[in-house]
Structures are given as C-alpha cells and as structure tokens.
C-alpha cells in the first residue's frame, strides 16, 4: 500500500470527521430553547437562566464554544454532562458503546451466516428453484421494517413460545447465558434484515466471477466444481464481499439504532432517542458523534482492506 494513498485517505477522513463534528455540534445552537432552561425546568426565572448560561459558557461566540467542545472531547475524552441526570456523558458512552458493538457484531455474524450460503447457492444455479427462493427471501427482507421484524420475533419467541426474554439487558458480569439470551432477539432482528440484503450482493458478486474466463479455463481443465468454487470463485469474489460488508455496516448501524429502541437495549441508539425525547442535547450530540465516527472509521478500514486482499489493486 503506498504511503501516499494512505495519507490521502487519512486526510479525507480528517476532513469528514471535522464536518461530522460541526454537524453534531450545531445541534445545540440550532435547537429552540436554551439548554439552561431545559436543565432548570419551567419554573426557572430569566435571571437564573442567564446566570447558568454564563456558567455553562453559552454566552461566548459559537466558534469558541465549538473549539472548546471538540478540544475537551479530543484531548480529554470529555463530552460534558447530561442536562437531565447531571452525570458524565463520557462514562455513559463508555458503558453503552460496548453494548452497541456487541449487538452489531452478532447481527453481522448472523447476517453473513444467512447471506453467504444463500448467495452462493443461488449464484451456482441462477434461475433455479433455490435462486428463486433466495430472491424472494431477500426481497422480503429488504422491505420489512426492522421494528416490525422485532415485534414479530417478540411475538413468536417471547410471547408465544416463551423461550427468550422480550427485551432488556443483562451485563456480561452476571453470566454469559443471561447476557446472550437477551441479545439473541435484537441481533436476530438486525441480522435477518442485513442478511437478506447482503444475499443479493453476494449472489451478484459471485455471478460476476463465475462469468470470468479463468473460471471457464479451470473447468475446461477438468478441475472439480468444489475446487473451482473455493480456489477460483470465492477468493476472487472476496473483495466485493468485503465491500458489501463495509457498505452494509451503514444499514446495519441504522437497524441497530431501531432495534435497540424496540428491545430497550442500552446502546447508543436508544440513548439518542431518549435524549431527543427528553431534550437532553449534549447527550444527543455525543451519541450522534460517536456513531458517525465509528461508521467513518469502518468505511476507511473497508477501503484499506481491498489492498490487503488484492495485491493487484494499486492506488497512486
């Protein structure tokens, strides 16, 4: 990987992160009503509000406030404190980020466990029965609202069968089984949807490789179908599949936000909604910023992984 390409990508990353931080910061000046009023409640006098605004530094120019806000986050990892609970936002994020990542990770695994076999099967016999079945599954998956999928799974596995808890969270420190059993339904919800979307992409990535000359040559040489699939097709389709996973992370993270809310999962998504409903804007700023940063970094890693997977990809 050329150093120049790496630096160029890092430069773009910093630019996007700067933009993201400006957007996240601008939530606070854009919202109607002063944060001081939200903290003090409706009975506060104008005088009290003005005093608190001065204490919070809200009377300073926006640029100064922005630099201060970003500086605290970058230098000290300090997001300030919640307007409602008055607790540190950083520790709240530190508590919730692992929950979101665990959920997204399991959902991605479930998605891949669906998409890879289904995509491969349908690409091997395009137009066949399996292909038709896979395409129906993926069409349904693309069209199902994630929150409805969650409700259906709760209805089946929690309300009717009683196998799994319908919502909530148990920390890992209380044991693996309770932790995992609470994670299955939310992860399944996001995983089923992203799996069905990825199925279509895996299928077309494979079909493209299957049409290549070297696959025909390998077959003509008498190489068995299994070897052709593993040595020639899958290896060459790997780049497209990694791209799909990277792109899918956007949809997956969006799904996870929704799923967290339905299943009362204590992650960043449910934090964003609660803070919106409670008008707790510093918390919303932090949750939005963290999610966007995570997503931007995932995008960069996806891009860089091409080069590792395919030495023939050269970037000037």
């Amino acid at each position, binding site marked *: 990987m050329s150093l120049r390409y790496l630096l160029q990508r890092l430069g773009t990353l910093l630019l996007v992160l700067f933009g993201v931080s400006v957007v996240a910061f601008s939530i606070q000046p854009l919202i109607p009503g002063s944060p001081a009023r939200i903290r003090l409640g409706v009975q506060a006098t104008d005088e009290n509000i003005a005093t608190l605004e001065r204490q919070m530094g809200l009377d300073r120019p926006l640029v100064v406030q922005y630099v201060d806000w970003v500086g605290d986050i970058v230098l000290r990892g300090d997001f300030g404190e919640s307007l409602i609970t008055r607790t540190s936002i950083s520790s709240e994020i530190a508590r919730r980020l692992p929950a979101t990542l665990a959920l997204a990770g399991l959902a991605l695994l479930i998605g891949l466990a669906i998409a890879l076999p289904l995509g491969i099967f349908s690409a091997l016999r395009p137009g066949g029965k399996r292909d038709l079945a896979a395409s129906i599954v993926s069409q349904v998956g693309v*069209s199902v609202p994630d929150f409805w999928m969650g409700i259906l799974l709760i*209805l089946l596995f929690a309300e009717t069968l009683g196998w799994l808890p319908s919502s909530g969270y148990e920390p890992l420190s209380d044991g693996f089984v309770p932790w995992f059993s609470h994670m299955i339904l939310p992860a399944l919800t996001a995983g089923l949807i992203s799996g069905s979307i990825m199925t279509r992409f895996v299928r077309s990535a494979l079909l493209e490789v299957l049409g290549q000359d070297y696959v025909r040559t390998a077959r003509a040489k008498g190489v068995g179908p299994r070897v052709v699939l593993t040595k020639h097709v899958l290896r060459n389709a790997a780049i497209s599949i990694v791209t799909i996973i990277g792109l899918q992370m956007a949809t997956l993270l969006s799904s996870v936000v929704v799923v967290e809310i339905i299943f009362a999962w204590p992650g960043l998504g449910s934090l964003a909604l609660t803070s919106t409903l409670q008008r707790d804007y510093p918390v919303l700023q932090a949750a939005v910023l963290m999610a966007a940063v995570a997503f931007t970094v995932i995008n960069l890693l996806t891009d860089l992984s091409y080069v590792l997977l395919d030495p023939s990809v050269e970037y000037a």
Partner: protein
Amino acid sequence: MTTRSSSDRSSDPGAPLGRRPVVDFLRRFLRHRLAVLGAAIILTLVIVAAFGRALAPYDPLGMDFGAVFAPPGPEHLFGTDEFGRDIFSRILYGARISLQVAFIAVGISGTLGVLLGLLAGFLGGWLDELVMRFMDVLFAFPAVLLAITIMAILGRGVGNAMIAIAIVYVPIFARVTRGAVIGVRGREFVTAARALGKRPMGVMLRHVLPNALGPIIVQTSLSLAFAILAEAALSFFGLGTQPPEPSWGRMLAEGRGFLRQAPWMGIFPGLAIMVSVMGFNFLGDGLRDLLDPRSTRS
C-alpha cells in the same frame, strides 16, 4: 435481464423521445413481471390513499368500547385496538399519510439532490469537491440517527418528519445524479452542443439531464420505498405522526404494548408497510433492469 436492442435510444442519445421509444419501453415494461407487480401494488396504494375514507367500513377515529380488542373476523377484518377502533379502516386511512410523506419528502430530496449532483458532475472542480465532501459528511451518519437528530432540532410532527427524511436522502440523489452526469458529459452530443456555443445551463438541462434520467428514476422509486419505511420508523418512535391520526408506524407502536391480548395489532400495520415498500422496490428493481442495464445485478 433485458438488454438494450440496437434500435434503442442508446445508439442515438441526442434524439428526442418519439412515439416509438415510449411504446417500445411500455412493451418491455409490461413483460417485466416484477415491475408490473410493483406498479399494480402502487396503483392500489394510490387508490386506497385517495379514497381510503370512503372505502373504510368504519370511521378510522371512531371508538367503540363494546368491541375493544375484537379479534379479526367478518365484523372487523383486521380486528380492533384498545379503543375498539377498526384496524382495517385505520390502515386504509393511514395509506394517505404514508404516501403523502413519502412523495413530498422524496420530491424535496430528489429536486435538491439532482440539482446538486448535476452541478457537481457537470461543472466539476472546486464546486464538485465542496458538494461531494458535504454529502460525505451527511453520509457518515446512520440514516435513522440523522433523521432523529433533525427531528430533535425541528420538533415532532408529520411535516418535520418529511423535512428530516428529505435531508437524509439528498446525498443519495446527489451521488447517483453526479455519477450518471459524469458518464454522459464526455459524450459526443454534449461536446457538439458545447461546440455550437450553447450556454452551459442549456446544455446541462437539455442534453445532459435527460440522458442521465435512467438512474435517477430508479433511485426515485427505491427512495420512495425507503421514505415509507423512514416515516413509519419516526412515527413508531413517537416523533412523526401524532395521535389520534392513524399512521402505520404509530399503530405498530401502540400495538407493541398489547402483543399478548391483541397480537393482530402488531401484525397488520406492519404487513401494510411491507407490501407498500415491496411495491416501490419491485418497480425500482424492474426499472433498473429496463433503464439502467449497466448496473443490473446479474
């Protein structure tokens, strides 16, 4: 998948659409089963949205405490909710809100996105850089989270939900349009129009845009599907449509609390969302096969 025949517009891209190409397109469209199915679903949806109130067997807002949680049956096709309101009637009525939000939101984001993409792709240079980097920034936020954030700024309500959804989908339209424009701008007929001394604005609108329309039309259909999902999600969270207005997302949120007593409350509104979204997805996929053969999935 259908490929373009030699008599297609692609061989003579500058030519205006005559009667033949339209007939030709319609014939190919009607042979595409998925696209026809999608169009049929959308047509039904539009009819339901227009005449929902007249078609509904009950008043969608009318409460009947004698029929609370009535299961689906001949009296109430999809059952009733905790206030005895007829779910079937509410779903018919909810179609209007869903479609309204989707069409207006996609109309706004399509107009803005296409304009930005057109300018960025056609003019290039620093404008392209500026526009596309800004789109990158918007893209960096998970869609639902961005919509929630915009709702936090604007406040709850169905009008604000439209604006939020519109903003979320601007970058997609901008990227799709820019890509299509870049594919077209180097072609001979554009160079010829420029060489003839036509003004850039005229070249852009008369020659570049019409030839970049395929992917934009496809994206419009797919975005309508997304917009229906997004409106339902925002209403589900309590940020979009406010009670007692029946919206599919809101009905699901209400049903969520009564899954044990009345599971149908959690089933039928979701089914309505899924079928509508499928309609636009089918149409979008079909149109992609017909209009944009380069990006066919197989």
